[in-house]
């Protein structure tokens, strides 16, 4: 199972935390595509070509996917995926 945590605007769309069962080999963009459908959130997260929108930050186990394999980063059982908008603390 993959633990998905969503924050700020995205928490209000997906809920704070959800578990997603892996269905064979899954990438970050697969996960997001699957998540968006039931929440009608496709336009918020994904662009027209099915890629991830720029203002959507994704961490896998605390590492930004840009330092991994981007949208194609592969997920394994037990991974924690975080989805959040640009940060604004302080």
């Amino acid at each position, binding site marked *: 199972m993959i633990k998905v*945590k969503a*924050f*700020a*605007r995205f*928490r209000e769309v997906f809920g704070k935390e959800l578990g997603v069962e892996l269905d064979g080999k899954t990438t970050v963009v697969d996960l997001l595509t699957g998540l968006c459908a039931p929440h009608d959130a496709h336009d918020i997260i994904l662009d027209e070509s099915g890629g991830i929108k*720029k*203002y959507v*930050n994704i*961490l896998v186990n*605390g590492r*930004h996917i*840009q*330092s991994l394999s981007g949208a194609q980063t592969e997920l394994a059982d037990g991974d924690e995926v*975080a989805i*959040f*908008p*640009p*940060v*604004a*603390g*302080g």
Partner: protein
Amino acid sequence: MIKITEEDFKIDEMIWKAKHPDAGAVVTFLGIVRDDDIVGMEIEAYTKRAIQELGRIRDEALDRFDLTSLDVIHRIGTLAVSDNILLIVCGAPHRKDAFTACEYVIDELKERVPMWKKELSEDGCRWVEGAMKETR
């Protein structure tokens, strides 16, 4: 100390901890809720990662500047106008390092630490969007 908490903090106590025989300067940054036609603010954090990133920022500052201490405390939850949001306390032998380190921490915090604010006003609420920088 790096801390994310719903509780308010005592500034005197935090500054007291920064007292060190080699410290000649303690620079403190206190962020408070400003009345931008709001009644308050909700602050949310990805706590585990926020603490990790704050720890990295602290280590960078300790590495770059000559400091005797560096502490950061950031509140989450619902806050009213004039409530404390965060406190950064930098102790240093000399004031230049204390000022520069304190500004470094708040600048980096605003860009890198996974926290978000929702402004609450009479008319409703809105998420404050950060600038579009990547978290590391």
